Structure formats: structure tokens, C-alpha cells
């Protein structure tokens, strides 16, 4: 059975589009946490003024993270319920999952750190911040590489 017939029948196409859109928003607002959009005129583009507001990009990033957490939980469970009987994950999928896991875990710690009354050590704070950005950079590089070599997430069981 080919991956194309994977049982996420009603959701597969929109799910993929939703994931790409969500990841784009998260990447954009994530990079927007660095003070570069104003410096490099991004926020001067008509309609993009909000991108220089750190609080706005932060809220959007958090909303994106909420949706990503929901989507990740959905996909993991759906894979174990039905997906694994219908397709296999490719090696590149495992690489992406590993990097995505890194992004999510460091992101969770990042959110925890921002809560009142939660204080991490300076070394852990530094590690979380740099690791979150690092995992994201590697994910984008990996996604680009897999796009070039046309390696998708799934393959048929017999492939």
C-alpha cells in the first residue's frame, strides 16, 4: 500500500497545508524575536508594521505553539491508531521528528521559563534559548535538503 492511500483521508491535504502554514508563521515570528525586522526594513513593508512589535510577534508565536502542540499530539496518536498499519515513516521523517522534538521540548522549557515564579539557572536559560534557535535552524536546513532530494515523510509498507 502506498503512502498516498494513508487513511487520513479527509484531512491529509489540508493537514499538510496547515502544517506548512503553521511552521512558516512560527518560523517568522520566532525570528522576529530577534531585533532584526525593524533593522532590515521588514516592518516598513506596508501591512508588516506589527512585525516590529515584540509583544505581538510573541503572542502570535505562542498561539502558533498552541496549535503545533495540538497538531503534534493528534499526529502521534493518529499514527499509532491507524497510520502505522498503512504506511512507514522514511529516514528523513525520523530526522525531522527528532529536530521537531527538540524544537517542541526547548520551546516548552522556554514557555516555562517565562512564567512568573519559575527561575532557571543562567546556564540552563542560555542553553534553552540557543538550543531552541539551533533546532529550528537545523530543521529548516533539513527541510530544504529533503525538498531538494524529494524525500517525503512517508513510504508504502512494502517499499
Amino acid at each position, binding site marked *: 500500500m502506498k503512502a498516498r492511500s494513508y487513511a487520513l483521508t479527509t484531512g491529509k491535504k489540508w493537514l499538510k497545508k496547515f502544517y506548512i502554514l503553521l511552521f512558516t508563521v512560527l518560523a517568522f515570528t520566532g525570528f522576529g524575536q*530577534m*531585533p532584526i525586522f525593524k533593522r532590515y526594513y521588514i516592518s516598513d513593508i506596508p501591512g508588516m508594521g506589527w512585525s516590529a512589535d515584540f509583544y505581538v510577534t510573541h503572542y502570535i508565536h505562542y498561539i502558533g505553539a*498552541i496549535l503545533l502542540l495540538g497538531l503534534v499530539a*493528534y499526529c502521534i496518536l493518529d499514527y499509532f*491508531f491507524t497510520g502505522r498499519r498503512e504506511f512507514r515513516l522514511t529516514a528523513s521523517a525520523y530526522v525531522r521528528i527528532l529536530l521537531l522534538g527538540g524544537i517542541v521540548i526547548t520551546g516548552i522549557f522556554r514557555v516555562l521559563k*517565562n512564567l*512568573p515564579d519559575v527561575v*532557571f539557572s543562567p546556564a540552563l536559560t*542560555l542553553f534553552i534559548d*540557543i538550543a531552541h534557535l539551533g533546532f529550528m535552524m537545523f530543521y529548516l536546513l533539513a527541510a530544504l535538503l529533503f525538498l531538494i532530494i524529494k524525500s517525503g515523510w512517508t513510504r508504502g509498507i512494502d517499499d
Partner: protein
Amino acid sequence: MTKEISRRSFLKGGLAAAGAVAASSLPLPASVKASTGEELATLIDIRKCIGCEACVEACQEVNEPKFPEPKKPFPKMYPSRVKVSDWSDDRDVTDRLTPYNWVFIQEATVTVNGKEETFSFPRRCMHCQNPPCADLCPWGAARKLRNGITRIDADICLGGSKCKTVCPWHFPQRQTGVGLYLDILPNFAGNGVMYKCDRCYNRIEKGELPACIDICPEKVQKIGPRDEIIKEAHAIAKEIKGYIYGEKENGGTNTIYVSPVPFAELNKAIEKGPGMPDLNPVKDSMAHADNLAKAMIIAPIAGIAAAAGKFYSTSKKLTQSEEGKK
């Protein structure tokens, strides 16, 4: 009033002359020493401040080793809208916050019961309980310590000034030509290091008082566990029918001011501008983010429920179609 001013002027002059004398090293109060890991706050009773600037001088003196020594000429930064921020030739400026002046004296002349009265008080980082500068710093350079201090690590900071932008009072001040950015992409990213009061974290580590508290001849400031400081602030406010600033601002800070006149009045009277923060009421900058963080707990549960629902409905359809075939 006249008596107040002459006393203020006398002490100001005397203490300015004595400014070269290094801050002594009074130990932290026993209650502070005992409270390892507890959030410490400072209480500033503005009735006591005479504006002598002894705290300003002591701060500059003990923190001098931390001050920036920029390399000149500065690397050309692109694009051209990126401005150099150089205070290295204006190190003596004390009437505002700069990278070389982490505390300054603000003055407000207000009318109290028909009488004109001048109040002065030290202004510096409030050390918020949930500091947006530390929360939103993309590098982990700004961070909150367990004892309630928010400090910026000059070895890591790239000087992007985000901390200043998100700070409700815009406390941190930038110095170009110093710091890590010089070793990365000095022309295209970063712009120096941000500096602000670190409440003498290194002195507190050694069990000593912050320099501004230590030197103050009028004992304007005191430091202690936040709960105790808040209690004392309320007791003073009750006694003098006064007002408190810093307890609730930005969700709560570790710098509590007590004043006999409303802070709105003081705010109208102080000089405000770059490096001269206001005394406006401040809502919790991180409140929305904290609420969204709670939603992150629900999100995976919703995802799991959706997947389980899909599995249930798919299984039901399969069972029905198999029964239909039979």
C-alpha cells in the same frame, strides 16, 4: 520647607566631596542572609531622600569594573539606519541613565496642602518579578536570578536593545563597540551591550549590601525578603496616608517606593525622556503570554481527543460497512 532644602543642600555638598571614598561593606541584614534563594526586594522611602547623589557615586565606583571599554573606531553598521550609541566620552553624566550611570536622582516639585515641596528619589531598574526583558531576550543574556535580581550578562548580550524596547520604563542603556557582536557579524547584527542596574549581584553574593543602599546617609533604601518589604511599605503608607509604587506595577516588582503624595502627581512633575523613566501605572506586560501558556496544556489534550474521535468514527464506519457486506 526652607529647613528641608538647606539640609538637603548641605548634605549634598558634603557628600559630593566625600564621593571619592569607596563604599564601605556593611553586611546584609540577618533576615536577608537567612533567606537564601528567596526573592529580595528594596524599599525606597522617598521622604528620606535628600538628593545628595551619594548612591549615584557609590554605584559608579563599585561597578566601574563592569563598565564598557569600547574599541574605537566602531565597525560600520548596516543598514545606515542603525545608529551608534556611544557614552564612553560622557561617563560623568549623572542626570539620567546611561551605560555608565545605572542609578540617577529624579526630582519632583509638587504642591502638598497648598505648600510647594520637592521630593527626590533614586531611579534604576525595578527588578520585576516577571521581567519582560529577561523573558523576551532571544539569547538568554538577560535573566532573572532566584534572589529577585534581573541582570544582563555583558559577555552574551549583543546589544539589540530589545530589552529596552519591552521594558515598560526602558531602563537598559546601550553602548556600541563592546561585547560579543564584535566577534560575530559586527557590520550586520548586534550593536554593543545593554547595561542597567544589577543590584550589585556580586556584592549580595558575598553577603554585602548593594552599594547604593550601603552608602546612603539617610537610609532611604533597605533590602529584605519581598514579603517583609511589602508589609513594611504598607505599614508606612498606612501611617503617613501615603502611596506605593512597584508592588503591582508590571505584575509586581522588587523595588517598592513609598511616597506621601500620589505617584500620579510625582509623575507629572518629574522630567521624563530618554534615560529618564516615568512613574506611570504599568499593567503586567507578560499577562497575555502567561494566559496563553496555560492554553498550551489544553492543546495536546484537544489533539489527543481529535485523534481518538477520528479513530472511533473510522472504526465505526468500517464495522458498519463490513456488517453491510454480510
